[in-house]
């Protein structure tokens, strides 16, 4: 079990970095927002994996992930709207 936990932890970290890389690499706001979501997914993956370390899962971490998800979706919605607005302005 530990091995696959390590695997998921590492994947979470790499996802986070992939998002970071995407953020750096892209200039288009929508792609940047997607990259941010990937970063977020990486963090959530780490959290869910950590919750799995004991026989019973850690409810606190799960609750934190739920909160994090809602925060992420609100921010994403707002950011996308802003991106559209700012690009429409440019035209």
């Amino acid at each position, binding site marked *: 079990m530990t091995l696959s936990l390590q695997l998921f932890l590492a994947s979470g970290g790499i996802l*986070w970095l992939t*998002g*970071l890389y995407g*953020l750096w690499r892209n200039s288009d*706001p929508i792609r*940047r*927002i997607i990259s*941010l979501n990937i*970063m*977020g997914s*990486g*963090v959530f993956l*780490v*959290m869910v994996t*950590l919750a799995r370390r004991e026989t019973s899962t850690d409810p*606190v*971490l799960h609750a*934190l992930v739920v*909160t*994090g998800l809602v*925060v992420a979706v*609100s*921010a994403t919605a*707002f*950011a996308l709207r*802003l*991106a559209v*607005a*700012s690009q429409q*302005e440019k035209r």
Partner: protein
Amino acid sequence: MNAALVSMVVPFFAAMLVLMWRPQQQSWLVIVASIVSLLAAMMALLSVIDSGPQSLNLGGWESPLAIRFQLMPVNALLIVTTAVIHLIVVCFAASSHHCQSIKQAFWPLALLLHGSLVALWLSMDLFNWYVTLELLGLAAVSLVTLAGHKALRAALDYLLLSLFASLTYLLGVVMLYGQYGTLDIALLATLTEADRVTQTALLLISAGLMLKAALWPLHLWLPAAHSSAPTPVSALLSALVVKAPLFILWLLWSRVAPSELAVPMGFWLALLGGGALMIGGWSACRTPHLKTLVAYSTVAQLGYGLLALGLLLHWQLNDLQAALWLFVVAHALAKTSMFLAAGEIQASTGKKRLNSLRGMTLTMPVALFAFAVAGGSLIGLPPSGGFIAKWLLIQPMLIEPAHWPWALLVIIATLLSAAYVFRVVSQGFRQSSVSATATEHGKSAQWLALLPAILVWLMALFSEPLLQLMDVFSA
């Protein structure tokens, strides 16, 4: 503690009331809410002075499970500062003619920002800070977008960087939780060891917070966002919002981090602070636009905070935290004044550039005076709040000959800040070709811009109780 909760809840409720009933005359409601919040904040401060730090476990659960609030002298002071600045800013927004167009949307956002800030100051929980930081970020970005189309690009960059910073912060928090199984600052402080996980986690958290606080070299978003925002918003952002991450950074490194990590990190933080002072000051001296100058000055002044924090950690000197927080409070007041004055001037001339300030001593004397007086505190001229803070900062630098190079840094920073402040002021004294007609309108807004500047100079007279307050805490 209850008073502090009232100070936090009142803005939240007021925001909901404004949103729900949408009264035509909203300003009185907002001002009353701010006054109530300020009174409650003062009562909280008094209660801390009387009976020392207080702790509250939300929901009545045991400490590792519950989110914990703690009222200490430092955050009581910050709550009062927040309330004072919000009160001044909403009064300014209500009285300035140039803020008419943004009012409807401004009130609820400003109130939510106020409540969120107080929630952040009170909390002692790493994840709860993540939520409050998100609140602050969203509220701040929404407020920036009030300026209309020109500000959208800056707002978007601000939002993306802020979200990125939050996720960086969150990863670090999760790692700390994974390692130590708690999110509470006080508990973590007893557990942490100087291992690899802790180090990485702390670095991630710090990177996220430094980005949010626009600490050099992660400051690039700040000048665009703060200068394109509407005037009252710029004041709130520069004065308060960027200080919130600094607060967390301070608690984290001075409490949670083991000293093996904190001492070397302190050195680097102090160096970065020095960099902020130099680069921020230099950029402020170069920019042709008034509000951008003020925004760069925020970058530079945050460098003082970082320098104080870094040296506090590096030398393990708790005395420096008084310097750190007095810097924060003094800068908050002075910067409010500067932004309000600059914004009022810019709105009335309709031009962004510095040279539109010609003849301002005649047309808008109070606004220019406010700018100069606030600038005096930023430079650190006595007897102002900024001076007290700087004085406390340089004392430990001077006592050891080995520390003298840091003092040199402060000298250069002071000269740079003097250079950019007087760059503006001397423009105001320049003769203007425009026929000199003193404008009567907007007088009250100008006086409101002057008010925080006067407060920051009054701070010097009350330095004794302020310092005692800080001592209560470090004892």
